[in-house]
C-alpha cells in the first residue's frame, strides 16, 4: 500500500524552463511534506518542506504547492538548471509522533541544455 505516489518516473525539461514534479498521497493524517533530492551514489538531501497549514512555500528557485483537498503537492523549479538533474523524492509525515517519513518512489529529472 503506497501512501505516497509519484506517478511520473522521469521528466525532461529544457534549461531555463520550469520543472514541475508531482506527488499524491492517500493518508489524510499526513501534515508535513518534504522534497528530497538525490544524486547517484549519494544519500537524499533535504530540499524544501511545507506544513499542512500552508498551501505554498518558496525558497529561491524552488516552490512547493500543497492542495490538501486533492491530497496533492507539487514542486516547481524555475528556472531549471543542468545541476538540478537528479532524482526527486516526495515524503510525508505525521508530526507529533515518532518521526517516520513515508517516501514516494521518486521522479528522475533531466535538465537538458
Amino acid at each position, binding site marked *: 500500500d*503506497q501512501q505516497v505516489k509519484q506517478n511520473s518516473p522521469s521528466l525532461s525539461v529544457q534549461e531555463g524552463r520550469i520543472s514541475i514534479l508531482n506527488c499524491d498521497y492517500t493518508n489524510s493524517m499526513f501534515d*508535513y511534506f*518534504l522534497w*528530497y533530492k538525490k544524486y547517484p*551514489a*549519494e*544519500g*537524499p*538531501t*533535504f530540499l524544501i*518542506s511545507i506544513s499542512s497549514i500552508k498551501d505554498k512555500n518558496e525558497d529561491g528557485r524552488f516552490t512547493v504547492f500543497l492542495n490538501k483537498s486533492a491530497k496533492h503537492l507539487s514542486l516547481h523549479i524555475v528556472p531549471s538548471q543542468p545541476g538540478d538533474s537528479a*532524482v526527486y*523524492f516526495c515524503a510525508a*509525515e505525521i*508530526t*507529533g509522533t*515518532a*518521526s*517516520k*517519513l*513515508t*517516501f514516494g*518512489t*521518486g521522479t528522475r529529472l533531466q535538465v537538458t541544455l
Partner: protein
Amino acid sequence: DTAVSQTPKYLVTQMGNDKSIKCEQNLGHDTMYWYKQDSKKFLKIMFSYNNKELIINETVPNRFSPKSPDKAHLNLHINSLELGDSAVYFCASSQVMRETQYFGPGTRLTVL
C-alpha cells in the same frame, strides 16, 4: 565535514554470512534511522532510535538488529544474509520532533 557517515560504502558477501553496517552522525541529533531502498527504488524506513532507545521497528525480520552504543551511532547488524537483502541501506538522523532528516551516502549491499 561529513554530517552523517556510513561504512562501508559497498559490501559484497555470500548468502548466510553475518555483516554489519556502521553509521555515525556529528550533528548532535537525538534520533537516528535506517532506511532500505530496494531494487524498485522504494525507500522504506526500517528502524528509528531516539537517545539510544528503539522507537520505530517496521516489520523487519529479526535477522536485522540495530545497535546504538551512543546517541551519535546507530549500527545495523544483519544475520544469515539472504539474496533479498541486497539493497542500498541509508542511515539518517534528525532532532527529536524536527521534521528534517539528514541522510548518509548509503551502503550498497550485494548478497551473492
